[in-house]
């Protein structure tokens, strides 16, 4: 990390008078402003405190003693990007495949509820032999499972302009290591009746949000998670417990789960009819499209990076709700030729998989693309293929097109937008 310090008194305003950056930044603790170059070369402005400013040579002064909570370096400030309805993970700032819990994307329908874990209960009823109410402590006493997989909102594509970061294009995907009890363990405990084919999952947020889920997914690999990345699950991700359906559209993994009702038919809730359904050809509307198809994105280089000539590692993530990533291919010439990228092992089922490809940029224009191929043989499609398959009126759900970055002669990297 390079830094270029500016003394506050050397900074002159347009009137020639010294302007205190402390005032400009509005922070009482601000002592100065440094122009930081991120490890990807992006220049960002950052306020630092008097205490930080004093330490010019870390080998000449002892640092603070051991503490009760760790913090990020003050030089690193990755942040989510919120809108009215969601908040996006800064994919371009991350390494590897685990999303730090405080950077996990958010999508909820009536805000984040505060739930006292001592009063929390999960009720399972309907077509079961024994309707039961579980406390959080009881859920934690069942045999537990830990598993890493991605969670992605099915409405995870934005386009429309060249100046867009990976976060803005598809930041509604994140990955955690989740711990909890398999739903099948609870199904066994309550005795799910053979004729039950669907269950309703209901949250205890202000939307009391509900989705219908086939019982087969409950037996297969659904989890009730109470922990994320080694600690209690975060409120934004469903504290104190949530449903998780690996590989399926995020909305079905109902957070703040309070009730599961077994039934012999879907409930046709608002979120599986008016929302999370998509127009396809012949005037039809596709419903219960649970599985997230394979996708990838290059997160470096990407907008707003400024490239310098020479060797670099093209990096990104690939994932598929259908299973494991089998292969990722990278093109540096707009899809004329494709090259196999290196996948970071171990490649996990239904999980973000890091890929890398070495490239020597000689300075001309280039178009960088990646495409994921999963173990079912599915190849990540282009936007044109998606439109051909679903028609021009296809909605914004389940869009997983190949993403292109246009490298300009001057080293700028722009998003090749194909659809509003």
């Amino acid at each position, binding site marked *: 990390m390079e830094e270029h310090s500016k003394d506050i008194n050397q900074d002159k305003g347009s009137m020639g008078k010294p302007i205190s950056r402390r005032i400009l930044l509005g922070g009482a603790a601000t002592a100065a402003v440094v122009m930081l170059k991120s490890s990807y070369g992006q220049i960002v402005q950052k306020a630092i405190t008097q205490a930080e400013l004093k330490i010019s040579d870390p080998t000449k002064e002892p640092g603070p003693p051991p503490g009760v909570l760790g913090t990020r370096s003050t030089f690193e400030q990755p942040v989510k990007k919120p809108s009215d309805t969601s908040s996006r993970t800064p994919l371009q700032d991350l390494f590897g495949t685990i999303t730090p819990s405080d950077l996990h994307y958010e999508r909820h329908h009536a805000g984040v509820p505060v739930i006292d874990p001592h009063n929390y209960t999960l009720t399972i009823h309907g077509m079961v032999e024994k309707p039961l109410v579980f406390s959080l402590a009881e859920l934690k006493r069942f045999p537990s499972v830990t*598993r890493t997989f991605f969670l992605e909102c099915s409405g995870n594509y934005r386009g429309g302009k060249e100046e867009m970061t990976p976060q803005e294009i598809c930041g509604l995907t994140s990955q955690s290591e989740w711990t909890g009890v398999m739903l099948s363990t609870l199904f066994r405990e309550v005795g799910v009746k053979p004729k039950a084919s669907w269950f309703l999952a209901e949250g205890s947020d202000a939307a009391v949000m509900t989705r219908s889920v086939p019982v087969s997914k409950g037996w297969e690999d659904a989890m009730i998670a109470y922990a994320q990345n080694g600690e209690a699950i975060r409120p934004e991700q469903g504290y104190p417990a949530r449903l998780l359906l690996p590989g399926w559209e995020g909305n079905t993994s109902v957070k703040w789960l*309070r009730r599961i009702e077994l039934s012999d038919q879907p409930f*046709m809730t*608002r979120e599986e009819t008016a929302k999370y359904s998509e127009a396809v050809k012949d005037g039809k*509307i596709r419903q219960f499209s649970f599985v997230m198809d394979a996708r990838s994105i290059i997160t470096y280089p990407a907008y707003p990076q400024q490239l310098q000539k020479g060797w670099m590692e093209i990096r990104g993530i690939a994932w598929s709700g259908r299973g494991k990533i089998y292969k990722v291919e990278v093109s540096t010439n707009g899809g004329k030729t494709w090259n196999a990228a290196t996948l970071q092992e171990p490649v996990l089922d239904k999980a973000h998989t890091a890929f890398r490809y070495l490239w020597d940029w000689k300075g001309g224009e280039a178009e960088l693309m990646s495409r994921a191929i999963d173990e079912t043989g599915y190849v990540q499609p282009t936007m044109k293929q998606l439109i051909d398959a679903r028609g021009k009126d296809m909605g914004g759900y389940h869009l997983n097109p190949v993403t292109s970055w246009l490298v300009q002669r001057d080293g700028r990297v722009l998003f090749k937008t194909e659809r509003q």
Partner: protein
Amino acid sequence: MNKLWIVCSCLIIWSCRSDDQARHVVVTTTGKIISIDSASWPSSFHLGRPASPAEIEKMDIDVRPDGVGLPAGEGKAIAGKVIYMTKCVACHGTDTTSPDAKLLGPVLVSTKPGKNKTIGNYWPYATTLFDYVRRAMPYNEPGSLTNEEVYQLTAFLLQANKVIGENEVMNAKTLPKVVMPAQNRFIPDDRRGGAEVR
């Protein structure tokens, strides 16, 4: 690629196992799905307490398309309009709201053709209206409406979308019988797996 298909087939075979078996699966840390021998497990962990019918009834607010879950009570559009103009219009607008207006909620009563997905041109089941309004609306005061008020609002929203007439009464018997214009457009997921882009 053949190996991959074998893996998929195994999963399908597994999921077809009979329900009365004490089947149980867990997922390894690498994501591999394995079945475990639950014969070594006790028949019950004796965790959880019985849910009483009364406490289930209190929580069980969902309404299915066949009408199961609909409470007693009824309502007509004229009464619903009064509630709508007081509690809903600020976020959802009216039929005369400009299509360019920035509303906090989706347009609900427009019958004009446009790209908006509305109750009249998109919602497949009328029962969903009752279920959703009762559980989640108004946004700033969810769960505050009486069953009677929810029936009234449901009637108004259906009438304003030209699905029912002004004098039709909505209750547990009539609401499930309302056929929504878009219902026959809905199809279950028709993606078939494998290489196909669909």
